[in-house]
């Protein structure tokens, strides 16, 4: 497990381009790669984009996922089956295929979304969803959330199944409202599961490459160039493997810091209770 990581760190301290790979020269450059990256304003722009994108996607995924899980356990048998199958299908769609489908859904001239919105009276004919970074992020984010929600729904609904129904019944008899029951009975019991899922979502969304890259290759005007795309563009496409390794080490470090903050606040919250 640790070997690729160690190798990556060592790589980040070397100048490795195709030339070095072919000549087999090992050129140690110390922290030059890190200096280059950290001095690049485009890198920090990408960090901000990545953090915001991750926060928005992970939060939306969790909220939608939990709400749908609550819906799922309450549905009668047949609608439940239909919803479950739809979720599995969304989950099972290959990422690249799903991205292509979303691109067409939001296409300027032939997209179903523009057509539907025009039907309900909005002036969306010929609206370009990919003309600004924000709007491109919106589409990419929808796609990421759409594919991430099923796992959350199934995991949470499994967790909900472990909540003893007697507790809920007792609370109903005591006259507790639905929201009171959720916050005092159900939520504390599924909380660990929510915590784990949110943790995973943050990791997955932070390193989401395919969806964002395939959507507009980090455009327009590099406005959707997140960290993974920047690493690909600066490092791999230009064969600057050392630089790419350094950028990936920094990415992991940022992710670790974010997760450490998250875990700390989660533990704190636990202690307060």
């Amino acid at each position, binding site marked *: 497990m640790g070997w690729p990581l160690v190798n990556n760190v060592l790589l980040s301290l070397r100048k490795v381009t195709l030339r070095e790979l072919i000549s087999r020269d090992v050129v140690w450059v110390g922290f030059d790669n890190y200096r280059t990256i950290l001095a690049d304003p485009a890198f920090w722009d990408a960090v901000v984009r990545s953090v915001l994108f991750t926060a928005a996607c992970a939060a939306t995924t969790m909220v939608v996922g939990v709400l749908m899980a609550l819906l799922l356990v309450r549905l009668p048998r047949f609608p439940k089956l239909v919803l479950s199958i739809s979720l599995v299908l969304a989950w099972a769609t290959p990422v690249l295929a799903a991205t292509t489908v979303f691109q067409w859904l939001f296409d300027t001239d032939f997209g179903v979304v523009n057509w539907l919105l025009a039907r309900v009276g909005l002036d969306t004919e010929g609206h370009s969803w990919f003309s600004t970074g924000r709007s491109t992020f919106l589409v990419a984010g929808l796609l990421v959330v759409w594919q991430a929600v099923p796992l959350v729904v199934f995991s949470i609904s499994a967790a909900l199944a472990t909540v003893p129904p007697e507790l809920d019944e007792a609370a109903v008899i005591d006259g507790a409202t639905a929201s009171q029951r959720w916050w005092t009975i159900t939520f504390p019991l599924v909380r660990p599961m929510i915590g784990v899922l949110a943790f995973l979502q943050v990791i997955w969304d932070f390193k989401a490459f395919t969806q964002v890259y395939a959507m507009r290759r*980090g*455009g327009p005007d590099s406005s959707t160039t997140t960290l993974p795309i920047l690493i690909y563009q600066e490092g791999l*496409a230009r064969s600057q493997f050392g630089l790419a390794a350094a950028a990936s080490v920094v990415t992991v470090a940022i992710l670790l810091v974010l997760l450490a903050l998250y875990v700390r606040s989660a533990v704190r919250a636990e202690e307060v209770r």
Partner: protein
Amino acid sequence: MKQRWTAPALVAAVGLTLALSACGGDAKSGSGDAAEKNALTVWLMNGSVPDKVVQSVNADLAKQHPGATVTVEVQEWNGIQDKLTTALAGNNPPDVIEMGNTQNAKFSQSGALLDLDADKAKLGIDQWSKGMASSGVWDGKTYGAPLLAANRVVIYRTDLFEKAGVTVPKTFDEWVAATTKLNQANAATKDFQGIYLPGQSWYVYAGLLWDAGGDLAVKDGDSWKGGLDTPAAAEAIGKYKQLQSLSKAPKDADEATPQQFEVFAEGNVAQMIGLPWEMGSAVGANKKLDGKVAVFPIPSSSADKSGSVFLGGSNLGISAGSDSPKLAADWLALMTGEKYQTELALASNVVPNRTALLSKLTDPTAKIMAGAAANGHVTPVDPRWAGVEAGANPVKDYMTAVLTGTDPAAAGTKASAEITKRMSGAL
């Protein structure tokens, strides 16, 4: 906890050092005067050279070198860059490789290929057409031999031209007038487009830019400067906008999304700017177009010459780690020589690497394409150009910005700065 991690890390670090030094040792012993082997491994791309031509080349080589064997391995384009990188950095690289002409600079610069200038006379380097040969040159030395090329032409509907009383235009202004007339004559047809030209067909824009005397990037010492903030760039995008305004194609998409030949195949498009194979694909998708489609060269501002075009194609190179470089050079000389260039061009309808051979082409479409190739250019020959195309392509963003109303000067300054930035930095 801490102790548990230190031991493996130490082992790993030591292991890596050993592995790396071992690699270094290998390279030294490998690059000595090892005896030339009488066997070649050649990597060709799928669909580039017909099997029949390859067989004849191999047979000719065997006549020159009795007992020589050639193993041809056909590669797929998908993922070829990584595959070539891995193979060339490996211990036993193929002797001859085919690569996309825009990838050549990367392999030339990195020392992966042999300098071909020693075999200058044998290869006939002086006879190669300049546009095609330029992609194989790095730092004044030749590392790539042009194998074949193709370039864009205007694919048009002969029946629609006839009906609208329009003839094949000879200049850019005539072209705009003809397209306008086509639109007027077919105003009653829903979804009719005199030309299908999406906003990000950037190779078409590059042609207009070269025509105006500009370039995508200009070499400035060791680095490059973006060329979209120049008067030439503004003139070129002005022309592009003029032509694009006659199309209903999206301003924020390139020619592949959707594939323009599919739009053309629907039957309501009179022209598109594409590669000759797209004509075949369009007819394949709609048989009714059979016999109603032809091509003409992209017009320039003057009737004397056709417009500048981007030359897509591939080159051959000899890997630096080849164990039979002399045999490889002889194979290369045959494949890129007059005899087999003619055979290849006739069999595949591609542009051969010698201008002198253009007259031998028989297919009318290939003839027109090859004629226009005389005014062919390539993207900046530098490994760092790949970085410009890899992410969000600033040229495409520039085009969409101007087409949707941004001032060309402002958009050009921004795009140029981005190109300059991506093409700077150490190699």
